[in-house]
């Protein structure tokens, strides 16, 4: 599923995007608050759902080739996160929903394809 479709259907806020989200495909989702768990996830075209707003979240995402990050619980991405996301070309998206709710919404979207 294209990232642009997920953003459009869910009404998420886009904090940062490196360009055209039309060309970013998502085929798997990881929900975690532990970066070591993320590092062991070898899925491709991975979307990360987390409430972590540290710079290391983006760095870990870069190590594991995460395609986009959804930051939950109404948290916002700080300047440092945005700078690193810019360097790595990883879109940062926000939502008021919890990790669980976000995963449910995206799960339903992917199921409907």
């Amino acid at each position, binding site marked *: 599923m294209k990232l642009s479709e997920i953003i459009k259907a869910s009404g998420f806020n886009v904090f940062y995007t490196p360009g055209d989200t039309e060309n970013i495909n998502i085929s798997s989702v990881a929900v975690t608050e532990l970066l*070591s768990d993320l590092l062991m996830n070898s899925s491709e075209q991975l979307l990360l759902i987390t409430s*972590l707003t540290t*710079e*290391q979240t983006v*760095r*870990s995402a870069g*190590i*594991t080739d995460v395609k986009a990050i959804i930051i939950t619980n109404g948290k916002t991405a700080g300047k440092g996160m945005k700078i690193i996301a810019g360097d790595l070309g990883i879109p940062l998206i926000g939502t008021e929903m919890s990790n669980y709710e976000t995963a449910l919404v995206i799960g339903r979207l992917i199921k409907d394809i």
Partner: protein
Amino acid sequence: MNNYIYTDSLRLQELVYGLKIKEVMTRDIFTLPLRAKMKEAKQILKKNHITGLPVVENSRVLGMISMNDVINALEKGSMEEPVTEWMSRDVQVLSEDMSLSFAFSAFNKYPYRRFPVVDKENRITGIITFRNINLALINKLSSQLNELEHSSGENIAAERISGFTKVYTIRQYDFENGGKASAEIKKILKEKKLPDTVVRRAAVACYELEINLAAHSIGGMLGIDINSRRIKISSSDLGPGIENVDKAMEAGFSTASEWIRSMGFGAGMGLPNVKKVSDKFNIHSESGVGTMVRSVIYINNQ
């Protein structure tokens, strides 16, 4: 994969006792004469990106000027004053023929970040810092590992045409820059067009070790050594060391503080993850001394 070795031949203490300070120290050093002014000290420190200077007369060390001394003098507008007004006179020197273990003890005992090194006639011949020690230990360990590989016949066809070696300094609690070295290493591996799975495994090992250095050590070095056959990742620090290595290798065991956990780390998966992505893995740690970890990932072993 996952060959977990506690190898006797890589014992940290042997390395520490086997090296002399003069083999490790920096020989090309900057010094200040007694008549030098604080503004000259500032210029030398700034221009050469160093943080301390011995004050010397007739090759004898009479004091040390640190960056802090310069900042204090700057705040008081005393840059025209001689360095003798601001230098620390209580200088601890080390003899160049001492074992490296004496340098370890000195760094543990005194709050200094560098020690002047002298010869038998008490003339200054160099300076030793943490960085010197870390680099030397990484080089020594790397050559030992090469010998081990060679003796097991694995190194016969190893070409070094596309080789790459680099050592990064990782500072304690520097999470702002934590992960930068790993990101650079990942980029280099990608540029070498290595298989995606190899790049990913090596990047994970680098990143976990880099974060461990920032989160759990007083700072240390992350080394990468690539040849056509394998990627070797090394981490080395000078403390505080791991009390129970077996426990540290258990998934879920962690001594991380709440602060570190709040950043998404401290799940007790760092070292187990490095082991998991490695074809060869070894760790040695001494409480109060330091920790060394080596991860080897074979390029054509997928």
